[in-house]
Structures are given as C-alpha cells and as structure tokens.
C-alpha cells in the first residue's frame, strides 16, 4: 500500500500512491490511514489524484476513515479523477465530503474556512 503523509499549512496531506483503491486493498488502506493519522492534528486532506479506479469497497473504506476521524478531525478529498468522481456522484457520497479539484484548492479552502 503506497501511502505517504506530510504536514502542510496546518493540514495533514495524505497522498494515495495507488492506481486502484478497490476490494483488494481496502483493508490495508484503512490500516495505513489509521497509522498516519495516529498523532492528533487538524484536517486530513486525502489526495486521490493518482487513483484511477475506485469501487464500492474503496468507497466504503474512505467513509470508514472519515468516521474514525470524526468528530475531532475532518477528512476532505482532492484530486478525484473522472472514474473516481463518478462513483462519488452515483452514490451521492459527494454530498457528505468536502471535495476539492486539487491540492492547492483544498489548502486554499482550508485557509478560507479556518
């Protein structure tokens, strides 16, 4: 599971380095997210720009991570590719996440609403 995290402008930015977030990797994704978010902190930005495919297991894992961080920390998303964005739209889960076009916009959004 290729996942890296960095602190950036008060946010924890987590880059998903996998082309697929699917049933084969959903469990490991949740475990790695738990590890990289173990230290307390502010908002968590999940950069999904490298993810070309997301299935319902991957979506469920992202939701599970959001729930595990709540209520103290928000999980926000950025860089959704077209196939990934489609899954969020079809399931209407785009209505429960803050979703930014890219990392710069996500960081900008954090400044605006901080």
């Amino acid at each position: 599971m290729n996942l890296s995290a960095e602190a950036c402008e008060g946010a924890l930015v987590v880059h998903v380095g996998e082309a697929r977030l699917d049933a084969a990797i959903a469990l490991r994704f949740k475990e790695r997210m738990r590890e990289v978010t173990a230290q307390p902190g502010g908002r968590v930005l999940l950069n999904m720009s490298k993810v070309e495919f997301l299935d319902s297991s991957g979506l469920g894992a992202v939701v599970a991570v959001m729930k595990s961080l709540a209520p103290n920390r928000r999980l926000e998303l950025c860089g959704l590719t077209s196939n990934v964005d489609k899954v969020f739209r079809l399931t209407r889960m785009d209505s429960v996440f803050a979703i930014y076009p890219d990392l710069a916009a996500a960081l900008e959004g954090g400044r605006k609403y901080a």
Partner: protein
Amino acid sequence: MPEPALSQRPMHGEAPPGEPRIFHHSFPATAMAVRDALRSALARFIRVMTEEEAGTLELILAEVLNNIVEHSYRDSGKGHVTLSIVRDGRGLSCSVSDDGIALPPGCLGPEPSNGSDRPDPESLPEGGFGWFLIRDLATDLGYHREDGRNLLAFRLPIAPLGERRTN
C-alpha cells in the same frame, strides 16, 4: 475444471474484421485474480468503447466479481469464477457464473429508476453500494441458480463504432 486463463475464440458474425467480440475467462475467487480479470476484459474491448464506457464496464464487473469473492465464496479463496462477455450490435452482454452460495433475495432489488434503494449518504454507510451500482449501471440484470451454480447476466449498452457522440 478451470478453463484456460484467457481463451479467445475465433471471431464470426457481422462485426468488422479485427473487432473483438468475445471474452471468456475463468479465474480463482480472490481479489487479486479479479484485478487481473478486469485488466484482461478491459484490454479486450477498450478499442470499441469510449473512456466513459470502459470506466462503467470496469466498475460493474468489479462489483459483480468482488461480490462473488466476498459473499458467494465467503472470502475463502477457494472456488472459481467464470466471466463471459459477448459484444453484439447493442453493446456488451455479460454473464458470470460461480459455484458458491446462493445470492440472497433482494440483491436484484427494485428498478433503479426509482432511486429509493440507494443507501442514504447521511447515514455514512460503509457498504451496500455494490448492488446499488450494479443495478444503476447495468441493464437487463438477471439471476438464475441451477444445480448449485449461480448465473448472473446483464448488459452494458455501448454506442456503436462510428456513431460516437461526445457528451
């Protein structure tokens, strides 16, 4: 007996020469084997689909096949899944079979058009999206169980070659 990993039958019918028509693949019931099956199936038909259609095909197949791995075979890693896809004038006709437990009633659900079977986003569901996506994206979805074997069939409409619209 498991069939060869990727057998390609001779093409026939009214499709232009060189246009892929049939995909047939049997593989072990594991999530990694599903990944390989998706890659092979997409590679087979990628030339006759738009990017959007390819994304939809991959999503439907992933949901159907992973559902079999996780539920029909209960993540045992034992058993096989057989996927067949035939291209005809209206799109892709897909059939999937396995020898696991029966599909629970209700999975095929109500008509997707009424939309009421979508898990409620506000409840932050971690599951239940798989069958919703299948019902939403596939057409002519049908299930049949016979002699301990599950048979699921569905269609994915795709625009005919040469009549592609960009939308």
